[in-house]
């Protein structure tokens, strides 16, 4: 902490003018984005029960207005309008904890990264709200659901808008709380209650890391303001109290918990116990992105400790292949999508780890839309076949629920990486960057994951929509397409799933000049100032996209791989796309799986991670706890109890000395007197 005050003073002096700039109307608009859903939550929590089937009006309205304001703010930032500029605009609202050197101010900060997150969170959030009107219409907890959804929106928006680590942490925990409430929404179901508990506990493990990371940042820098702390950390990376490598890993631990990276990935598949809109909103499109956002936001910390980035990349790509391998054999439609989410999040972290921050945010945005679409679509399928989630009891649904089928097909093509849909661009950018930044192993595993992604997505489509119907004959006649309040959000999400990749990576006119950019692509231009520090620390230089060089080759390869995966799935699980009409081939599937029995069993049992956790924490942990309980009872408690009972016994016996009779005491006095006088005489006599 030597000379900390001086450093801090210079850092603060450098940032103060920016902080006090006049934000005009935005000082009001940005807090409103958070306050509107907060008001919606509070009002619904109080009066929602009485509103009955109209309970959605206030929450959806609040999010709708927040969406409009958020879009104004986001696009003002992206266009570099007045208060934002290229660096972003922050405003401190009040000092939360004014305590000597520990000052925490509550404020917001909006730059282009925040703007990108605002677009994803608000748009998908709004569409999920609308979709829920249809999906939850028969649920007795209708109003409760919307209250929770609004609480989640508050937390998530606070998380991306806050400018202080402590406020981010508060939002981080609020997000965890609303996730807990929503996973366990059907609390009468033991599996849902258990899954909620599991998600909460696993997240806490990561949160401990994040909390320690925040403390480490404060010890190092003396400030919790994100920008000030970043500036200080990177300027003094060599002479910190706590090494920056440790800080980076602690922050990453928090990100791992929230974004469900190995080994904290076990909660996400179980979180599918929640209602499907929740899975779409929280566990696919927004909350799980919080970890990616955090790492991207603190990119200078990671860039200052390149070793930590290798760890990030390794964990990311390992999660990607692990989850993809599990997704290939799951039969629960939502679980396939959950593992797919894990896998794609792994891609994002791998991308962050190799230093391709922009590519990670690119994939975050495209993935948010097409995964939100896929989840909402799966909800529509589940709705159609009367709450059946097992794909073995679906099949041939394409004709019965055409809107759901078409939108989910679009989403699957997008995630599989077939051009020109969104997923292709972002995934290819991640893989290309990994290869060019010298992480060939990440690229190699990533290509493999891309193959598996295309395969399991078309396995899902094949099992669900194509081939013969295996639906329960009792339900068969009642299969129906969802109401338009549910299919409209699907189509609205399908549009960005098709075009977003192309738009965000489009290099030239007409979009570039609109935002004052002439760079390599729209998103790269937007995020260039945000990641300038990190990129500079890593010493990366921008290279032009070589269509006929390495970039073109990698691009072609990833298309080929995606097509191989897709066609492979068609051959095994059937296809029904106009001229391509193949029958599913269950015998071949059985033959293939029996050739690699170990891999098949591992994938089916999720690589036994739940069993491993059960062994470590329930069996072994239970033994340790039982021993600790025995030790506490037999040794600690008994010591205390024995001391107490000895004291009581001694007291019982000694109290007989106190007879309460005056003469006994007087006798004591007399004997004492005689002893004293006698010993005086003896001593005085000897002294003479």
């Amino acid at each position: 902490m030597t000379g900390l005050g001086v450093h801090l003073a210079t850092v603060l002096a450098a940032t103060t003018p920016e902080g006090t700039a006049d934000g005009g109307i935005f000082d009001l608009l940005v807090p409103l984005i958070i306050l509107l859903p907060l008001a919606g939550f509070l009002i619904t929590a109080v009066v929602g029960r009485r509103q009955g089937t109209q309970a959605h009006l206030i929450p959806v309205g609040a999010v709708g207005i927040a969406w409009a304001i958020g879009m104004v703010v986001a696009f003002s930032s992206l266009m570099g309008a007045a208060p934002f500029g290229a660096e972003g605009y922050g405003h401190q609202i009040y000092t939360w904890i004014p305590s000597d050197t520990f000052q925490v101010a509550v404020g917001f900060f909006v730059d282009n990264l925040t703007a990108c997150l605002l677009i994803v969170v608000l748009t998908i959030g709004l569409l999920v709200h609308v979709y829920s009107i249809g999906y939850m219409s028969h649920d007795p907890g209708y109003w409760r659901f919307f209250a929770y959804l609004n609480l989640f929106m508050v937390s998530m928006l606070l998380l991306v808008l806050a400018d202080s680590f402590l406020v981010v942490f508060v939002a981080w925990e609020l997000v965890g709380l609303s996730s807990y409430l929503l996973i366990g929404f059907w609390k009468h179901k033991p599996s849902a209650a258990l899954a909620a508990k599991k998600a909460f506990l696993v997240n806490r493990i990561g949160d401990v890391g994040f909390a320690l990371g925040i403390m480490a940042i404060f010890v190092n820098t003396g400030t919790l303001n994100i920008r000030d702390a970043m500036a200080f950390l990177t300027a003094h990376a060599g002479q910190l109290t706590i090494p920056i490598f440790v800080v980076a890993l602690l922050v990453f631990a928090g990100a791992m918990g929230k974004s469900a990276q190995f080994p904290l990935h076990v909660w996400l598949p179980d979180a599918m116990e929640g209602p499907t809109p929740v899975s779409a909103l929280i566990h696919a499109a927004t909350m799980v992105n919080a970890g990616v956002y955090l790492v991207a936001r603190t990119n200078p910390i990671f860039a200052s400790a390149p070793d930590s980035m290798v760890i990030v990349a390794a964990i990311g790509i390992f999660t990607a292949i692990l989850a993809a391998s599990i997704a290939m054999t799951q039969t629960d439609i939502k679980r396939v999508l959950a593992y797919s989410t894990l896998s794609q999040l792994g891609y994002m972290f791998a991308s962050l780890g190799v230093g391709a921050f922009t590519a990670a945010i690119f994939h975050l945005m495209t993935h948010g839309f097409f995964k939100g679409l896929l989840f909402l679509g799966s909800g529509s399928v589940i709705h159609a076949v009367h709450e059946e989630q097992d794909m073995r009891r679906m099949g041939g649904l394409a004709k019965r629920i055409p809107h759901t089928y078409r939108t989910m097909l679009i989403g699957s093509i997008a995630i599989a990486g077939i051009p020109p849909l969104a997923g292709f661009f972002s995934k290819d950018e991640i893989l290309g960057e990994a290869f060019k930044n010298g992480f060939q192993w990440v690229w190699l595993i990533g290509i493999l994951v891309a193959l598996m992604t295309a395969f399991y997505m078309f396995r899902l489509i094949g099992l669900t929509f194509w081939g013969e119907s295996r639906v329960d004959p009792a339900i068969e006649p009642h299969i129906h397409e969802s109401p338009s309040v549910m299919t409209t959000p699907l189509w609205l999400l399908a549009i960005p799933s098709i075009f977003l990749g192309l738009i965000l990576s489009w290099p030239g006119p007409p979009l570039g000049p609109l935002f004052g950019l002439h760079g390599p692509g729209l998103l790269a231009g937007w995020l260039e100032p945000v990641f300038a520090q990190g990129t500079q620390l890593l010493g990366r230089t921008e290279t032009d996209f070589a269509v006929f060089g390495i970039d073109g080759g990698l691009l072609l390869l990833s298309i080929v791989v995606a097509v191989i995966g897709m066609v492979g799935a068609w051959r095994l699980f059937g296809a029904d796309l106009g001229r391509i009409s193949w029958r599913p081939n269950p015998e071949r599937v059985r033959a293939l799986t029996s050739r690699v029995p170990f891999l098949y069993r591992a994938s089916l049992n999720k690589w036994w991670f739940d069993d491993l956790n059960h062994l470590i924490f329930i069996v072994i942990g239970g033994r340790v706890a039982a021993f600790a309980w025995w030790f506490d009872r037999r040794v600690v408690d008994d010591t205390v109890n024995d001391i107490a009972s000895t004291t009581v016994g001694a007291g019982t016996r000694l109290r007989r000395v106190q007879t309460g009779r005056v003469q006994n005491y007087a006798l004591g006095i007399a004997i004492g007197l005689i002893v004293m006088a006698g010993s005086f005489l003896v001593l005085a006599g000897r002294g003479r």
Partner: protein
Amino acid sequence: MIRVFVGTALTGAFVVGLGLIGLAAGGSRSLNAYLVLSGLLFAIGMFGFLARRNAISMLMSIELMLNAVNLTIVAFGTFVPKLAASAQGSVIALIVIGVAAAEATVGLAIVIAIYRNRKTPLVDEYDAMSQ
């Protein structure tokens, strides 16, 4: 009643006998005689205090002990030349008498108060503290 007479007579004989021992030890001009008498008085007072159950008797025994000490002080005041010149012994004895009077007053007041409460002068029944 006869026991009282016998007791009184025995005590009287005892005191007279001891007085004779004192005279034999040196008569009225000897310090030792006073000290022996004083010691005897103190011993009697202590015995009375320990042996009697009646609170009034115990107070009387205390008075006896105080007076024994007073006698010692006066005797030293007379026989030690340095003290005799300034009459310090007598002054201290007067103070002790005053204090003893005050002590007796307070003691009696307490005894009467307890007596009104417990309806007994016997101290071994004042055992509320031991229960």
